[in-house]
């Protein structure tokens, strides 16, 4: 399957490049760690309630996504390799490859953030499985939202916080169910009650991926 081979080649290429220098990966990891420490310091002696802790966790995750996911396309522009990608691969393959890579990156970010939160800002946890599902769906949704927008921002070559400005409103329908599920994982942990939120997150991620597939070509081809 040529299409799949091309897509996986993009993923493998990005993975190889990031693992070779590890600068971007460790930078992102340190960003998450630094944010967690900042949160802990800002809370001083206080013990936040479950809703506040859930909100803080997801705010840290969203900000980490804004910082970390822009690299996928900006790096191509900086290295001057985007033209090579345009010549060798179809736009759908480039997008799918970058999406898979970003999804992997986001899964790493949410894992790190969640583990850090368990350590630094402990709140009761009744249903770890539900929390894991919320984190995974959230990570995928954030990757889906941010990948197209990061391509847009890279093409724009714009300075300043353009990616957060563009992506945060689009992330709201992921953020709200994710926080609800995180709170539920700490309190009651009922999977039946969680179902509408899980479906909502999945549906929204699906919508974003479909829209991105359709629109990516217009961003990619000058």
């Amino acid at each position: 399957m040529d299409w799949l081979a091309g897509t996986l080649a993009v993923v493998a290429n990005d993975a190889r490049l990031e693992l070779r220098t590890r600068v971007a990966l460790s930078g992102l990891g340190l960003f998450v760690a630094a944010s967690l420490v900042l949160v802990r310091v800002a809370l001083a002696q206080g013990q936040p309630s479950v809703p506040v802790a859930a909100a803080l966790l997801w705010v840290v995750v969203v900000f980490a996504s804004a910082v970390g996911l822009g690299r996928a396309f900006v790096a191509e522009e900086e290295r001057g390799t985007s033209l090579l990608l345009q010549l060798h691969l179809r736009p759908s393959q480039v997008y799918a490859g970058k999406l898979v890579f970003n999804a992997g990156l986001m899964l790493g970010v949410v894992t790190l953030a969640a583990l850090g939160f368990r350590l630094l800002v402990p709140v009761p946890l009744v249903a770890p499985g539900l929390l894991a599902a919320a984190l995974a769906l959230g990570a995928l949704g954030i990757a889906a939202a941010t990948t197209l927008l990061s391509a847009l921002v890279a093409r724009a070559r714009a300075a300043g916080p353009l990616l957060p400005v563009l992506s945060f409103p689009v992330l709201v329908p992921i953020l709200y169910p994710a926080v609800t599920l995180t709170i539920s994982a700490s309190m009651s942990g009922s999977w039946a009650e969680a179902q509408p939120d899980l479906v909502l997150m999945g549906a929204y991620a699906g919508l974003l991926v479909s829209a991105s597939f359709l629109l990516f070509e217009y961003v990619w081809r000058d």
Partner: protein
Amino acid sequence: MRRSPGPMDRDLALPRYGLLYRLFGVAAAVWITVVLVLGFLGPVPNLPILEQSARNLYFHVPMWFVLYAGAIAGAWHAGRYLATGRTVHDVRSEAAWMVSTVAGVTALVTGVLWSRFTWYQGTGLWWSPEPRQNMVAVQLLISGAYFVLRGSLDRPRQRARLSAVYALFATATMPFLTYVLPRRMASLHPGAEGNPAFSQMDLAGDMRWVFYSAAVGFLMLGWWLYTQRVRAKVAELRAEALAPEAAPVSVVVSSS
């Protein structure tokens, strides 16, 4: 004397607004004036807490309609721009987003004021955790992001293309933001959770016709603002293309 159509007319056709349009403008002005007079002077049922603030219905809700209409028109023209590449669609898309943003700001402000003097009477609160309020704020963030994106891009064709992509992407998420999410959240807002809204029994007879007229009137006003802006912008772009204020040594590029 009408000259023969050139290449610019395909790309940036000047909308021809004749007598019918001018009559429409007059009609819209008269309609809105009547609505405003009736809105402020007409009878409203004087319910506890709500009292005269019920008049806000004539302004708050139609703004929501204009916001939606503007966003859909903006997305439609963004799609047409990506399909055809004609600059006029980019101009129309931007004008629609502008009208949508103005309506959104008005909807938000009227909503905040309304809730402050009814739901939050005596509490001193300005911003409620009301889901629809938050969602309009998010919609305004999207509008703001659209204009920030446009401002950050210099090359006209790139600006048009990338902002069209963002417009379509963001409008695709609008049904989730403004329809699906608020239904999941607890809310006092009319129309949510079975609260009374627009059904026959809920809207007082006194107010019903003024409300319908207000909705139509504000949509007319919104459309008129939109067409005015489109015409002004197209005329400006055509003038620039024909006689650019360029420095003596630079090459004339109408759209790169």
